[in-house]
């Protein structure tokens, strides 16, 4: 079995995986990082979204072996020094969740939207850019509000506007 090494949330990790092992399986089952969820397992719902070398991807459709040498950020890696990331804080503040299952993917995707589209986001942009994430509670209203607020807050907390991960 191939061994893969990568940096996950700032820590170097190595694991023996099968060729078919998915990144999300490595995160959840080998590393115990169960914040990354598996919803549909068919590249549609986005619950498994993580950042691979700074870019949002659906980790149910990435091979773990493909991530040799990569830098991965999961929902567990967003908060720093015990303080919620501005996007997490915005989701809390605006109650942008109902059952909470899609939330980790929503937040990771939201941070990726800020990376691609900047901090000043209008509702339409957010809704379009959130197409890869499904909330089966249909609680999009507050999610959109939270992302708009979180994106603006990220600018204040990081003058460069550069998201982490």
């Amino acid at each position, binding site marked *: 079995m191939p061994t893969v090494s990568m940096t996950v949330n700032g820590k170097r990790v190595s694991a023996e995986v099968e*060729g*078919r092992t998915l990144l999300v399986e490595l995160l959840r089952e080998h590393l115990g990082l169960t914040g990354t969820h598996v919803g549909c397992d068919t590249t549609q719902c986005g619950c498994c979204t993580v950042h691979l070398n700074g870019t949002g991807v659906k980790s149910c459709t990435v091979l773990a072996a*493909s991530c040799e040498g990569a830098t991965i950020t999961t929902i567990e890696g967003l908060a720093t020094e015990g303080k919620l990331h501005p996007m997490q804080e915005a989701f809390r503040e605006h109650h942008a969740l109902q059952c909470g299952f899609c939330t980790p993917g929503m937040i990771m995707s939201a941070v990726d939207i800020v990376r*691609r589209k900047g901090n000043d986001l209008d509702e339409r942009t957010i809704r379009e850019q959130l197409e*890869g994430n499904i909330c089966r509670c249909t609680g999009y209203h507050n999610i959109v509000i939270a992302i708009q607020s979180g994106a603006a807050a990220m600018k204040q907390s990081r003058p460069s506007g550069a998201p982490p991960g």
Partner: protein
Amino acid sequence: MYDFEYHKPKSLDDAAATLSQHEDFKLLAGGMSLLPALKLRLARYSGLVDLGALGQLRGIRREGDEIVIGAMTPHAEVADSAAVARAIPALAALAGGIGDPLVRNRGTLGGSIANADPAADYPAGVLGLGATVVTTRRTIAADKFFIGMFETVLEPREIITEVRFPIVEAAAYSKFRQPASRFALVGVFVARTRGGVRVAVTGAAPSVFRFKEAEEALTKQFDSTALDAITIAAAGLNSDIHASAEYRAHCVMVMTKRAVAKAANVPSPCNERGRVRQGATMSVNINTPSPGSSAGERGSTYR
């Protein structure tokens, strides 16, 4: 997903050598179609050869009258490329309408056209623009590249390295997307070139194809009214749970007219909501889409 051997070659030569040693190995690009197919056990290979380490296959450059895009370039890079937006905005818009943003971060041009999904967007752009597919062995004209459902002329050990897109006078892609999958129920790419107009249709038939009758009419008169007397036969078109062949035939005409109107930068006789308003007075200005007007159509551009 059945297990397989995993290889990640460091060079194109290594990749080609690994493929030639193992008949049943498959190339892995972004994996956005291949991995789901493996997970559903719709496909099975004894090994995958991951092209992810070959940085030379990734990138976008302008060379003379062409935009050259590396096979491993993700859709998001094409969608966001200033060079593509300047030279062939319709291609940037097409790439920006594939799947969803997270899929576009990972899926690649080479992977898409090698897979040749009958409802994929890129085949319409490649065929519509008359692009050239460059492989480790040869260059292949788009007209010769796609030969059937999930079928191209690529040989088992041949690897796409880049695609060369000619810069044309005007072009647009109009897509009626299946809202759940975001694949094209019907997508039409129209390009006005010095040699005439090209019209490529995806999603409607087992393979992307050129709509020759429309090309001839549009070459004489590049205006959607030139298509008023033309229809396309439903026979041979796809029919499934999402749309009958007759519906797709109708959609081909609507999407072609919309693409022509966009390429010509005039209002379309077919409005953005999907209804055909033949002979009706223009009431929709396609240059100022209202909120939600993109619901049935993605990847449009004006030029």
